[in-house]
């Protein structure tokens, strides 16, 4: 009998404590970010879409078409091609296609590259309405366009 009283008393007290805690939280500021009105800055090492790194002086990509990334990728996402131009010591890339529908952003390609020609971008707004935007993305074209500018 005494146990029942004690249980009812402590039980009711626990309910009031719980209510007090939620009321405290009621008056605290919000913790959510109102995307898309506000957005967050991505961390330095954030793994966005993979892109080819460009040499800052010449504007060309650093890739030497050694195909290490193609071999390292677990999902067979990368297809690339390169030719050896005259007067240059190493090959340069002419075609670099990434199949983003299979890419898992694991970073094997970024780590496998011997000259760090691949890096992660901070791009996370990757919505599109066509499959072609993701299948066989041409990573080499932006470097050509940048050089033309």
């Amino acid at each position: 009998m005494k146990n029942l009283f004690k249980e009812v008393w402590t039980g009711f007290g626990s309910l009031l404590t719980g209510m007090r805690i939620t009321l405290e939280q009621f008056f605290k500021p919000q913790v959510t970010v109102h995307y898309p009105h506000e957005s967050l800055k991505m961390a330095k090492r954030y793994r966005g879409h993979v892109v080819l790194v460009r040499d800052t002086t010449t504007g060309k990509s650093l890739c030497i078409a050694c195909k290490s990334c193609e071999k390292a990728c677990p999902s067979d996402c990368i297809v690339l091609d390169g030719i050896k131009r005259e007067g240059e010591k190493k090959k340069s890339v002419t075609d670099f296609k990434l199949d983003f529908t299979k890419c898992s952003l694991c970073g094997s390609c970024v780590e496998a590259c011997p000259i760090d020609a691949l890096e992660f971008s901070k791009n996370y707004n990757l919505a599109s309405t066509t499959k072609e935007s993701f299948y066989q993305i041409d990573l080499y074209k932006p470097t050509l366009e940048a050089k033309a500018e």
Partner: protein
Amino acid sequence: MQFEKVVNVGGTTESGRETFVLNLGPQHPATHGVLRIKLTMDGEYVMHAEPVCGYIHRMHEKMGENRTYAQFLPNTSRIDYLSAMHYTHAFVGAVERAAGIEVPPRAEYIRVITSELNRVSSHLVWFGAFLLDLGGFTPLLYAFDDREKILDLLEAITGARLTYCYYRFGGLCNDVDDDFLRGTRDFVQYMRPRLGMYRKLVTDNIILRKRLEDIGPISAEMCRKYGATGPVIRGSGIPCDVRRVEPYSVYPELEFDIPHYPGGDCMARYDVRMEEMEQSLRIIEQAVAKLPEGPHIAPKVPRVIKLPPGDFYYAVEAARGRFAVRIVSDGKDIPYRVRLRTPSFANLTLFGEASQGMLLPDALALMGTLDLVIPDIDR
């Protein structure tokens, strides 16, 4: 509670009452994932529960036979995405044990810190989802608010928020900086009062206690029979934790308790997980204090690893129980067989026997305390 045995599944009970089959279908209103359970019910009581899994089978073990060791690393994070670091640790540990690679102490300590942070975040998801099942909607959001802090910390060093692919053979893929260590220390200071708040708001709440106490008793014998590990067996009174039974990494040098409660009911398993979060915070504090200087990866790890022929095994204490990797190698750079022993599979199998004769809402509460992640069951 006396219950009658079902004479034949989908038929009648001993006293001739008709049973019906209810499908706890692949689509759940709660956050369990795609699991189908065929329940044979007598009115409100569960007579027989038959789980049907395989709706999210992604053939990870088959993929292990087609990829090199380094190429399999992203897969390990995706087996159980909520405690991804532990799973990567097991695989990387198995390969290191086989190839004889020695991991520098700094890398080991950072592995422990990130694994324990991942354990806390996985338990926070369990906490929120379990309370959502029971009808308390608010603690889910408080738990996810705390989890954001962990995810931000880990995003700063690994670049990913859920499927970290952070460990490499011989260490880590990149080193941590002071921001991370400071953030981790701040997080531990922030989290302890929050755990106190959860205790006052949820654990002491009389409604929750009435809902969980003496519900779903699972005896230690049943756990042994089905091979259940993790908080399930620790909630039945047995202090079995891989970190103490088969020590790995630097856990022997760290001081922490193994929470275990003898009750065997849902409340005991709940208490075990809440206590585990506190112990994880303790481990993180010690590891951050003891972090040595040094390289973050072993030197001269070959780019393409070829393991000697043989059978190699490594077990870790993941958030849900004992996770183990067994690699059978025949000398090539691609393993012959990768076997993943996942905890949720064993924990699920005891649901059939443990839920007999229970009311349906109680059976759901029991399933919530087993903490099943369905991709873990189906791999």
